[in-house]
């Protein structure tokens, strides 16, 4: 770690903290949304989660500034492998003498990227299918929902293992698509249930009576009112996809080495966990930190947007 990387790290921390503080101030000042924002920030864990996520996104974006070493460079395979954490190597070095801190920082790019893209795809698909099924009902609903029943019964990890193992050398994009295509079933059920009840409401009936186009009704009138389950399943989805990618990488069939992801870092270093535990512990903690923050933010969103839940007695 050089002075420059410490400095960059400090700036990232301050930026993340300021971002959350500014958001909080702005949200609380607003007139109409004040109550929602207050409930969103009611739990301290939610603010922390948001701050940690912001920090990690900044780290991922500014990886070249924050990582002191090339993540894939084997510094000195003879003398510098499995070094314990020190001021030079903040989280030690791994079995191939690569800097664990630098790999974790660059790994954030791939891991967070897969998580965000996979979840985005899954939630978009799920929302679309759920909205169509719930709004049009009749045979469209029946066909789509029977399909979702089958999708929910698919052993997802086996399907992904099959896809990745059988089609050798699957590119990054294909992995994201495969994950997205197998992760939307739950969301579509939630959205459908929400749309089913919303379409009976007066404002939707009124919009229909006024002759508003169906697509516009769905996207402008119905879906914004179903935002809570969609946002929550998006937040939880990112964490799930992240864990899924880590599991696949751990089984040796995720992102190909030497590019680091948190999952394949655990996989690469697990055999030497007894002599050099740091190189396995760090990426695992990073995953846990992200998933935990996402869960905390999802709790906050649920609290803020869910009309059914009031303050506990």
């Amino acid at each position: 770690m050089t002075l420059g990387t410490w400095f960059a790290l400090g700036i990232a921390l301050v930026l993340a903290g300021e971002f959350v503080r500014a958001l909080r101030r702005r949200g609380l000042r607003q007139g109409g949304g004040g109550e929602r924002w207050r409930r969103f920030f009611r739990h301290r864990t939610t603010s922390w989660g948001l701050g940690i996520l912001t920090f990690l996104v900044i780290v991922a974006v500014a990886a070249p500034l924050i990582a002191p070493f090339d993540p894939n460079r084997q510094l000195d395979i003879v003398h510098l492998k499995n070094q314990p954490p020190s001021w030079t190597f903040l989280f030690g070095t791994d079995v191939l003498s690569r800097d664990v801190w630098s790999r974790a920082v660059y790994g954030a790019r791939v891991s967070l990227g897969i998580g965000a893209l996979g979840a985005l795809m899954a939630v978009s698909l799920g929302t679309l299918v759920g909205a169509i099924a719930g709004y049009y009902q009749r045979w469209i609903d029946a066909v789509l929902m029977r399909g979702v029943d089958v999708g929910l019964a698919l052993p997802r990890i086996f399907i992904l293992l099959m896809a990745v193992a059988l089609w050798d050398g699957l590119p990054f994009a294909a992995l994201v698509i495969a994950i997205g295509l197998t992760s939307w079933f739950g969301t579509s059920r939630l959205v459908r249930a929400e749309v089913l009840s919303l379409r009976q409401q007066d404002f939707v009936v009124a919009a229909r009576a006024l002759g508003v186009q169906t697509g516009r009704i769905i996207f402008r009138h119905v879906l914004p009112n179903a935002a809570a389950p969609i946002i929550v399943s998006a937040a939880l989805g990112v964490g799930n996809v992240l864990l899924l990618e880590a599991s696949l990488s751990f089984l040796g069939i995720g992102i190909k080495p030497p590019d680091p992801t948190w999952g394949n870092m655990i996989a690469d270093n697990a055999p030497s966990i007894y002599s050099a535990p740091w190189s396995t512990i760090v990426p695992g903690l990073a995953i846990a930190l992200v998933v935990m923050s996402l869960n905390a933010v999802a709790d906050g969103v649920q609290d803020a947007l869910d009309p059914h839940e009031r303050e506990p007695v």
Partner: protein
Amino acid sequence: MTVAAWLLRRVLASVAIVFAVVTFVFILIHIAPGKPCGGQNEIVDPAVCDEVNRQLGFDRPILEQYGLYVLALARGDLGYSFSLHRPVRDAIAETIPFTLQLAGAALVLDFALGLALGIYQARRANRLPDVIIANITLFVYSLPTFWLALLLLLVFGEKLAWFPVGGPNNPVLCPVIDSAFCLADRFWHLILPATTLGLVGAAGTARFQRAAMLAVASQDYIRTARAKGAPERRVVLHHQLRNALLSFITRFGLALPFLLTGAVLIETIFAWPGMGRLAFEAILTRDYPLVTATALIASTMVVAGNLVADLLLGVADPRLRVRTASDLDVVTA
């Protein structure tokens, strides 16, 4: 609709779902490039490989293969595993006890600990004990299970050496369970993998149960129960918990298949010869019949879990019994 008619409809729908899953997996595995014999890493004479693939029937049109498979399936024949050189049915039957032991132990820990924590937290909502437990469960719930498994192995298997680091039993002293000592040996081997799965599950259950208890806590009938002077214990256990159990049952139905098939990584790490590991190895060796059969069993577990949960919901909540099946779908969605 009578219960019998509802049950029949649900069972038929479940069979259809499982059949669709099997078909999907069958198609996926057959359109994948390559044949069981003759992968790019193998050093087998291509002529020999062609002969092997021909004998196994993989040179025939996919529709014909599918037809033959379905016909065999209808007779209860799961096929022959060519990587293990034995019938698929035997290979799977051998792993099921191990999977059930692991899943059962994990499930007990999951729900016993999770329910207790969730109820305790709801009783002290937003006070210090609740906040502390909530933060711990949030953390544990977010851990990658395979990473937790590695850490538990590191600490309790290697450093402290309290528990064995893998396998279902001591291969020298207890190759088969034939004495009380060997039974204890099995439990001893079971503790680490079951704790890994159970702890993460329990954290989720606790979070879930706390929310369910609190959602019920503000209902009118709870206030009524308190107002009429029912003892606190009865209010919590009889009025609050019983109503909060509905969502718990749904969760139980969802957890059942996950514990059986989602344990691929845990079974791999702890060298536990269960179904998840069998499925993983089957995929790696391109053992088509074995892969399809494990998918069949996994999806059967999912639909069975849903069905059991719906039946239990009817037992727990009389209001759900008189409804029709389509309403039940909405309730469990």
